[in-house]
């Protein structure tokens, strides 16, 4: 990393825009400042600290402004990346923010949690020329910088709301899909009611993704923006139980509904002993910590889970989050057990790296056979079987094949299942006429995201299966667009 003085010099030269492409290629990638691993495992504060202004300007200046901008194709919501990055390079953060805002409503969030190495940054010319994706322009980091800089200056764009249309729209859930849909529907002048089952809005952003990756005050400020736009947010309302979807439309007079109910149905291990005391779904483990704040036992009434040796099953973001939370809750040893090999880990690279730095162990090519317990029904350990990689499966990843006779007992006192989420079945259960696929995901028109019930649209994880924040947000906007058209013809 360069010293502050050197950065000043580079930045000054950049502002004058006197670099050639070749020189640009030589500008060093800006590393993200982070809390030191030995410090951060004892607190819940954000791990990545964010760029300084000069770092952002320098990083932005690595962008070549490619005419064909392949990065944009990699972004699910097609942010004009070279457009906003050039504003950052010239120090115009407001300009950058307004470019981003045309496509993304949640830059402070997506800049932090997007799997950039599989999206925008995967296609970046700079990375390609260095033959190393890690060398791509840090698009996500810049996006985060812009959003943070704006909120640090107290600069907030509350989108303008069109004249009232007299139409009433319900938005079910308050995750990223619903936040995006609600904002766009409100902008068009409809009266929007958001119904959330939990006592706080934000969906997975509040109960799943930990504070150390996504500070909850960012999510709260996005929800606050919706309120300032005049969206009515009703928490503690479970559509299907407090009122059915049908009743909302027929009795309460909603003209259209967007369902963004997410993928909140935890998959359990599916082996004997999965219900022993000490076996948790990642959802439960993370909700206790994030939503209920059990990591702060001096204040929280929800008890924290005290563990010594923790096994986390899975290899995605959820597994990394659970493992790193376990460390912060005081576990002395945390092991991620994954059926495939390191190459197939679906989690973001950055999170895997952070987990390793923090001392999380990885046991690849192992799968659970049985959870064992003592006479009080508490977990004592797990019998694992080794696996070898077989032929690629439908997802294109090589599937693990267990090796008979390789069973071995490993001692653990806590077991966390982070092997995926199915779709929340409650709405289907109480509205049987809605068509779903075999996995319980809503079947929608690809263009409009309308479900089999006219006027009911859906997006995010309830349609895609467990996906990503940016895809959920993108679908929320896509559905809102179709809904605005549907409502104008009504």
């Amino acid at each position, binding site marked *: 990393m360069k010293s502050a003085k050197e950065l000043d010099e580079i930045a000054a030269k950049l502002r004058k825009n006197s670099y050639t492409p070749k020189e640009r290629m030589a500008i060093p990638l800006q590393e993200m400042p982070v809390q030191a691993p030995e410090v951060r495992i004892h607190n819940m504060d954000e791990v990545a600290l964010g760029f300084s202004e000069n770092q952002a300007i320098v990083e932005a200046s690595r962008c070549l402004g490619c005419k064909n901008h392949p990065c944009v194709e990699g972004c699910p919501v097609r942010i004009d990346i070279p457009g906003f990055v050039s504003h950052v390079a010239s120090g115009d953060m407001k300009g950058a923010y307004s470019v981003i805002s045309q496509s993304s409503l949640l830059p402070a969030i997506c800049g932090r949690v997007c799997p950039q190495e599989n999206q925008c940054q995967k296609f970046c010319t700079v990375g390609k020329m260095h033959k190393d994706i890690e060398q791509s322009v840090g698009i996500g980091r810049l996006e985060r910088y812009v959003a943070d800089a704006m909120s640090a200056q107290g600069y907030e764009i509350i989108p303008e709301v069109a004249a009232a249309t007299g139409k009433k729209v319900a938005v079910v859930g308050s995750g990223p899909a619903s936040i995006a849909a609600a904002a766009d529907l409100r902008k068009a002048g409809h009266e929007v009611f958001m119904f959330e*089952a*939990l*006592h706080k809005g934000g969906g997975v952003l509040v*109960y799943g993704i930990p504070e150390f990756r996504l500070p909850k005050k960012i999510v709260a400020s996005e929800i606050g923006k919706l309120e300032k736009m005049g969206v009515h947010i009703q*928490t*503690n*309302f*479970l559509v299907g*139980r*407090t*009122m059915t979807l049908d009743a909302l439309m027929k009795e309460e007079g909603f003209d259209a509904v967007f369902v963004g109910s997410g993928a*909140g*149905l*935890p998959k*359990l291990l599916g082996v004997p002993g*999965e*219900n*022993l*005391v*000490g076996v*948790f*779904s990642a*959802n*439960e483990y993370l*909700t*206790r910590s994030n939503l*209920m*704040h059990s990591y*702060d036992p001096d*204040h*929280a*009434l*929800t*008890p*924290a889970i*005290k563990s010594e040796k923790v096994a986390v099953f899975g290899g995605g973001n959820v597994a990394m989050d659970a493992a790193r939370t376990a460390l912060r809750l005081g576990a002395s040893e945390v092991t991620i057990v994954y059926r495939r090999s390191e190459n197939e880990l679906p989690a973001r690279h950055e999170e895997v790296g952070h987990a390793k730095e923090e001392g999380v162990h990885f046991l690849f090519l192992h799968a659970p056979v049985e959870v064992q317990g003592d006479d*009080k*029904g*508490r977990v004592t350990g797990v019998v694992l079987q080794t696996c070898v990689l077989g032929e690629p499966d439908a997802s294109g990843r090589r599937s693990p094949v267990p090796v008979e006779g390789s069973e071995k007992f490993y001692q653990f006192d806590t077991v966390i299942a982070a092997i995926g989420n199915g779709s*929340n*079945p*409650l709405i289907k*259960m109480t509205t049987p006429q809605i068509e779903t696929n075999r996995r319980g995901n809503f079947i929608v028109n690809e263009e409009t995201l309308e479900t089999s019930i006219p006027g009911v649209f859906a997006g995010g994880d309830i349609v895609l299966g467990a996906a990503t924040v940016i895809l959920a947000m993108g679908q929320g906007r896509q559905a809102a667009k179709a809904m605005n058209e549907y409502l104008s013809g009504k």
Partner: protein
Amino acid sequence: MNRIVKKEQWSPEVFSMDIECPLVARQHKAGQFIILQLGGDFNERIPLTVADKDVEKGTITIVFQTVGATTHLLARKNVGDDIPNILGPLGHPTDIEKFGKVVCVGGGIGVAPLYPIAQAMKAAGNDVKIIIGARTKNLVIMEDKMRSIDPDLTIVTDDGSYGRKALVTVPLKEFCENWHPDEAVAIGPPVMMKFCALTTQPFGVKTVVSLNTIMIDGTGMCGGCRVSIGGQTKFVCVDGPEFDGHQVDWNNMLSRLGTFKPQEAEEHHRCHLDLGIPEGKA
């Protein structure tokens, strides 16, 4: 929102509250429950059964026993106070049909959730017998309400201070032998429900129990409430709360309830200190 409009103390540890909650009152059916949270970032979410409702007034009645931090804090709320968060009604309603003869068994605080079920069973044309049990006389609740459903109501106490000195399983067995019920409903402490199920099993009397597992969201998201029913994992909040008592893996259910015992004991103690309640008092 969710204003407390009536509060009664029925015993040192048992309270009843009527709370304005029109949406829940309107949708509620016997057997369903709510999740309640006392606000802020740090309060826990606890499940409580809706023991009664008044759709006109838009109120629901909860009856609860002070066992830990949240129920103690709740007991300190008064008429006019608001409960910040109430979600419901949750869970499947009780399967109410004309079965013929139904024996309803309530233990301790379990009498409260049993009341709307017994009422609905009666309304559906069943012949209803009720057994209520408690540790001691001043813990017997809702006697009059229950007697209005079954004038021959059986009362038992552990110490014989009121009614018969027996456990609820004694009259339950007698009913199985002499009255031949078509269905039993048992609600109370898990150990009581377990032994009720064991009592009726030899007679082949289907026994519905309402499981009170630990919960967080109540929407099927966390899996913390799960139990093993006939070898299959079920979520009490969405698949229950009522199950066939003969299928429940009681030992697993009981040990799961104790998951946080050590931490909660500490909590309970601290809560007493904070509230200035002497140890041993509610």
